[in-house]
Each structure stands twice: as C-alpha cells, then as structure tokens.
C-alpha cells in the first residue's frame, strides 16, 4: 500500500459522508463504508442512489461536505495530499471515449504517470507494462478511436494501472460496452487484482458481476442499505426491490424452480447467485 499508515488496516474508511449538489436535497446521507485491502466490493443501486457521488469522493473529485473519508490511508479532505490520493486511487469511468486524452493509445496511458512526475522513459515503460496487464500489449501505437468499446475501456483501465494505484474504482465501467467487452474488462480486472492484490470497488448495475464480488454494498437514496456477502445480499429480493434492483438471473431461476416444485426450498444462504453455482446446484 501507500507510504502513509492505513487507517485501521482499511483501504477505504468512510464515516458519515454527506453530499448535496443543490441546497435542500441530500445525495449522500451519511455513508459509512469499510473496505479491506485487496477486497473486491460491488456497489449496486438504482440511478440516483448516490453511487457515482460516492465514487467521486473516493478520488477527491468532490469536496467533502460532512463526515470523514480515508482512502489508502489518505484523508480525502486534506488538500495537500490530493494528488497523492489520486495516484493511490484510480478511477475508470462509464464512457470509454470521454476518458481519452490522446488518440494514440500509448500516449493516453502515459498521461497519468507523466502528471505524477514520471519522466518520458518511465511513463512509456509504465504504459507498456499496464497495456500488457490488460491484454493490449503492442497496442501503444494504435489509434484509440479505432478500437472496440471493450478495448477502449481496457485502455482506460491501463491508464489507471499505469499510475500503480492501491485502490481502483470502476464507475459503471461496463454499462456502455458489449458482453464481449464486459468479459474482457472483467478478466483484466481479475488478472491485475490477483497480481497486485489491489482493492477494487466496482460500481455496477450488472447483478451477475456483483455476484462474483467478495462483498456487495447496496445503496438506496444516498445511504448504504445493506452490505454483505453476495450469497446473503443478492437473495434478499425485498431489499433489492426496495433499492430498485432485481436479483441475479441464477437467483430468479432458482426461485422459479422452487415455486414449480422442481427443487426443494433452499435453506438460507444455499440459493445460488451465479450461473456456475446454479449449474452446480442442479447437476450436483
């Protein structure tokens, strides 16, 4: 992790984080969140539930209005350490095209390292290494505009990885790309997470993706409505319905099979949340 001491051994520690874009309406209403180093946390919730606002606070893109937030041991309210924080916590945004600073892939990926003080050679080496990590080795000279959405999003991920972050926040990074692109990005995230042991906070509407996380955080109306293992949270249909979400396909299929009497009603925690889990449960 970074040079600083990590508060309580946590990669992210949020206490009572509040935010209002306009007077009289709270977009974050006292968010408490702890994320352990190396953990993959999926943050889910309907549009307007405060997911993106929280993500922007993690990178100090928004000024903290109330509460406290520490990311990778750095206080997001400390203006003197904001650039250190942005190096330690990288962000991948929703639209891959709107993150491209340069039309040349290698130049785009080297942009972050240059800003954080790397010289030309170091920036290029970091870009080459990061592109290799996301499966785009040899793409340095390619025109970013000719790449597929999935490839562009992997370039965006490489741009973040080139800065060697401890925490990576993906803000609905798969919502504008096709299923193949989503799979490519998911594999790339898994690969670098295994290799570097980085913490990943994945904000998503994709319940199948959330089902593969270590932990799921459900946001509802600017608050954390629930937090727990996917097997506990994603089977709570009342909670998901209240948060404007629906259970993963595996859970819905399992419930339908239970209702049809094909399978016996499952004990708490036994309902499969992933397709693989469903197949295992059905085929033994």
């Amino acid at each position, binding site marked *: 992790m970074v040079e600083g001491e990590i508060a309580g051994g946590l990669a992210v520690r949020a206490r009572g984080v509040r935010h209002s874009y306009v007077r009289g309406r709270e977009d974050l209403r006292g968010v408490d969140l702890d994320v352990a180093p190396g953990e993959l946390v999926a943050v889910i919730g309907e549009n307007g539930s405060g997911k993106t606002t929280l993500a922007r606070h993690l990178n100090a893109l928004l000024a903290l209005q109330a509460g406290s937030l520490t990311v990778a041991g750095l206080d997001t309210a400390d203006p003197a350490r904001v650039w*250190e924080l942005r190096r330690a916590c990288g962000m991948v*945004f929703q639209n891959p095209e709107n993150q*491209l*600073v*340069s039309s*040349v892939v290698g*130049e785009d990926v*080297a942009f*972050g390292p240059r800003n954080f003080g790397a010289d030309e050679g170091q920036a290029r080496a970091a870009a080459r290494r990061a592109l290799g990590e996301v499966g785009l080795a040899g793409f340095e000279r390619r025109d970013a*505009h000719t790449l597929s959405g999935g490839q562009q999003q992997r370039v965006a991920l490489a741009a973040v990885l080139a800065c060697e972050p401890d925490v990576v926040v993906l803000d609905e990074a798969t919502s504008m790309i096709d299923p193949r692109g989503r799979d490519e990005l998911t594999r790339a995230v898994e690969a670098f997470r295994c290799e570097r042991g980085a913490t990943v906070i994945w904000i998503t509407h994709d319940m199948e993706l959330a089902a593969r996380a270590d932990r799921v955080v459900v946001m509802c109306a600017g608050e954390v409505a629930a937090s727990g293992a996917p097997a506990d949270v994603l089977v709570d249909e009342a909670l998901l319905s209240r948060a404007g979400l629906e259970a993963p396909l595996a859970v819905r299929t399992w419930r339908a099979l239970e209702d049809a009497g094909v399978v016996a009603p499952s004990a708490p925690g036994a309902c499969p949340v992933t397709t693989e889990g469903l197949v295992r449960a059905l085929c033994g």
Partner: protein
Amino acid sequence: MRALSGYVWADSPLHRAPAAAKLAGLLVCVALVVAARGWALLAVCAGCAALAALSRVGWRRALQPVWAMRWFLVVILAMNALFGGGPALAGAGTPAAAAAQGDALSLGPVVLNASGAAQGATVVVRVAAVAVLGALLTATTRPQQLIDGVRVLLAPLGRVGLSVEPVALAVGVTVQFVPTLLRESRQIIWAQRIRCGDVSSRGILRRAVSYVRLLVPIFVSAFRRADELSVAMEARGYRLDDEPRARKGRHS
C-alpha cells in the same frame, strides 16, 4: 474523419522534425498561401505537394480533408463564379451585360463570371492548401508532441502572464476530440432524419434551418463530453497550472 486527428506511424523528415518547428512552419506556410496569387500560389501548392511526398503519409491521407470538404469547396467556387468578379453592371444577367463583363457563360438568369470563377478557384486552392498542411501536421505529429510544441511556442507569452499549459492541452484535446464530435453529429443527423424526415431532401432554406437545429444538441453533447473528460483528466493527476509536476511520484 480520422484525417483530423489520425497520426500516421512512419519515419520521415517531417515525423522527426520538432513539433514546435512544424507548428511555426505551418503558420509561415499559411501566411504564404494567403498572400500568394497566380503563379506564386501555384508554387506554394507545389511546395505543399513536395511536403506531402516528403512526409510519407500517403496522398490519400494528405488529401483526405480536402475530399471531406469537397462540397464546401464547390459552393465557394460556385458562389464566386455567380456573384464575384467586380461590380455588377446595369442589366446584369442579360447577354449584353454578360458580354460586357467578360462572362464565360450565360444560361438565362444564371450568369457565370470568368473573373469571379478565377477568384473562386484561388480561394478554393488556398483553403485546400491550408487543409493539406494541417493534415500533414497532424499525420506527422503525435498529440502529445503537438501539446509540447504549442507549449514551446507559447512559452515566451508565459513571461507576460499567459497561462500556457491550458492552451497547449486545449489544442491537443480539441484535435483528438474532433472524430468523436463528428461521429456524434452524424448520429444526431440520423436521429433527426428518423423523426423529421430527411433534411437533405428539403429546400435550401428549410435545410439550413434543420442544420441550425442540430447545433443545440451538438453543443450540449460537446459540453457534456468536455465535462466528463475534465473529470477523468483530474482523476489522472492533471492540474491546470504551470507548476512543475509532483516529483515525489513512484515513478521518480
């Protein structure tokens, strides 16, 4: 589309030349193109062709922007041929007046003016030459080099208080954002066609009004994209000042 931003990987004297020198050379060449007339203009055009050959980016790439604005050039030529070329004579449009003014062709109310056509051709050649020079610059200069080049050229102005960094970055980002905005413009045109019919099948006035209507969503989209890009850049450590970057980074 890519003509406006696409760097062509090649090894040529133009590729190897410093970006600041190329930018300064572009300004000088544009001034020459604007000032030259007649044979001098043709000589400048020959110089542009020589630069295109020297750049090794290919004729197709060098002439791509000219092809992209071919209809605009045709309109310039036609407008000059029809309405340019000296003061209108009394009874203009009549065969006698046309003959008196040295018109090349008179077809009823449409009178093509020879001197106007020559003037139009000059304007077209100038615009095309500038477009080719711009294409050669972007095809032989990577965006980061372009930003650095602008930074070097504007450095003297930094001493009198101009903030150089934002201007340099704005140039680079603008160049690389052009393809995205062009594609978005086309999508908006398609959306308008689906809902309002094909604008190109209407009269000139209605077509012009339809294109003006496109400006609002295109501007909204451009501002939204610019906002998202600025947030993404900030998240990657970019800051709007001329101070030396952080030297305590992990890469140092």
